[in-house]
């Protein structure tokens, strides 16, 4: 299992797409830092002191950075996971690995561990990078007042996003071809993404139907719930009726409960179990 994990880890590192992603990430962080610096500088020169205004703009800017980070982490997780088993089956590369004294479950688990390790490191670096840029370059106006405890809690939820995507990616990869799995996973991601916005809008407008649509989409693919929960921890805005006003579309008026976190944990474990089971019973 650990050999497969190591191979899986190294395989992503060896891909050109990973190198491109690293360069683009550095470019994004540079751009984000520059924007934060000049926004903070201009805000300081204009002397904006309104608390609500300060809260809105600072959390908007940080929320935006984290949302985009979440998006690129998700994209990289989708690209690396959805082809991990199916492409090896299609190319017959998997034959010699599975001919070894190794169970199919161990193979899936090795893939999961290898990809997760890399994605967790990448997601953590990106998350911490955004927070540090905000704290360092945000000045008095755009710096969000966060404690270390809030950052750690938010980070731990943020890191669950790539884990869930990798698990679903592996499940799809164990069931279908790379192209089909990719399409299904991107659609699922889109459902979770749009459903999350619909739920927040529903909460703001007081429309139960919209909220329910959002909840169903989150049950189907709970990525947006994780992002919302992360913002709640980071901005300490649980049960705050003004949070949506303060944080805009990146905030969380309809807050995912702890029960949702438990659901996501079970969701991930069941999906991982199904991936192992499917892969163990299928022909390659």
């Amino acid at each position: 299992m650990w050999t497969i994990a190591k191979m899986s880890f190294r395989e992503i590192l060896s891909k050109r797409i990973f190198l491109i992603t690293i360069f683009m990430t550095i470019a994004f962080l540079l751009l984000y830092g520059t924007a934060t610096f000049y926004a903070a500088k201009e805000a300081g020169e204009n002397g904006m002191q309104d608390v609500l205004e300060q809260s809105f703009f600072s959390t908007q800017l940080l929320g935006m950075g984290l949302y985009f980070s979440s998006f690129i982490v998700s994209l990289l997780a989708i690209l690396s996971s959805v082809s991990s088993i199916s492409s090896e089956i299609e190319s017959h590369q998997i034959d010699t690995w599975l001919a070894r004294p190794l169970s199919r479950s161990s193979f899936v688990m090795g893939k999961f561990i290898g990809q997760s390790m890399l994605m967790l490191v990448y997601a953590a670096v990106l998350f911490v990078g955004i927070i540090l840029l905000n704290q360092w370059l945000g000045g008095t106006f755009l710096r969000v007042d966060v404690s270390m405890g809030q950052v750690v809690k938010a980070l731990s939820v943020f890191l669950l996003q790539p884990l869930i995507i990798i698990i679903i990616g592996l499940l799809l990869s164990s069931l279908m071809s790379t192209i089909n799995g990719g399409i299904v996973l991107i659609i699922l991601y889109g459902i979770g993404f749009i459903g999350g916005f619909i739920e927040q809008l529903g909460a703001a407008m007081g429309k139960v139907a919209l909220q329910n649509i959002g909840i169903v989409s989150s049950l189907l693919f709970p990525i947006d719930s994780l992002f919302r929960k992360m913002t709640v921890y980071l901005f300490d805005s649980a049960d705050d009726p003004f949070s949506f006003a303060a944080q805009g579309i990146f905030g969380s008026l309809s807050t995912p409960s702890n029960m949702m976190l438990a659901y996501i944990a079970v969701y991930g474990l069941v999906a991982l179990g199904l991936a192992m089971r499917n892969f163990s019973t299928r022909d390659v």
Partner: protein
Amino acid sequence: MTDTIIQTWNLTKQYDGKAGCREITLQVPRGVVFGFLGPNGAGKSTFVRTMMGLIHPTSGRAEMLGAPIGTIESRQSVGYLPELFRYPDWLTGTQLLESHAELCGLGRSERKKRCNDLIELVGLYGRGDEKIRGYSKGMQQRIGIACALVSDPQLVFFDEPTSALDPIGRKQVRELMRELRNQGKTVFLNSHLLSEVEDVCDHVAIIHKGEMVAQGEWRKLSAVKTQVEITVGSSPGGNPWADTSALVRESERLSATGERETWLITLADEDSIPDLVHLLSARGLSIYGVTQRQQRLEDVFFHYISQKEAWAHVDHRQNVV
């Protein structure tokens, strides 16, 4: 430890009720080079992939190294070179071997030595640190052979192991298979190249249209018919084989030189050879030479294939009637 390293009982793998292999019952003795023969599409690779646990049998059962196929125990000491060999091209040859050695549980120092030895054995000395993506097809097959041998397995499956190799490479692989047999290993050679199988195999099985046609020791299987080349003095009556139908099944004149004629005679069995010589002597014919002709694998192969076809034809006619 039993003397049979592979045993199958009516092993069947069908794809939507078609193709694959059907009811293969097979025994492979330990320490031999076993040739698994068949035309393209006969089901050879399906059988091997089923044995390796890559595909699940539709029915029947099989054991490898005393354990049911599909279990980790059955693959504990097995090497495999697939017909469609593809390896992660971002690894170097050495890294590939080390990864496989690690999966087989070899220690770090043992791993390094083993990999270096194998790189040399398969003729890739000095090329082990190059990425596989830079390897030619033949080099990839060579690294695949090294990969199959990395755990020093008791049983090695070679599925068309020389398909990408030049004549020198083919010869080296044949020598390697003999060497493995000398070390007490079992080689399961899947091939449609009859000359390759004939050269190295002790035992063969012939598969046709997914079904087993024949199996056993190559020496015994090759005794499908007894043929002798016999040179006799010209018979005054013309055909020296007149009135010998009790012994001679077929006769064909191969050549005639002066007063001598060379004939190819098909007999019922080996015991008929001295009887034939005795009969000819009794008739006063001069016998200049008698040589038993060794059957070529090609003849044996076609004999069993056509026999199977004939039976299938009879079955079909009976079903129609």
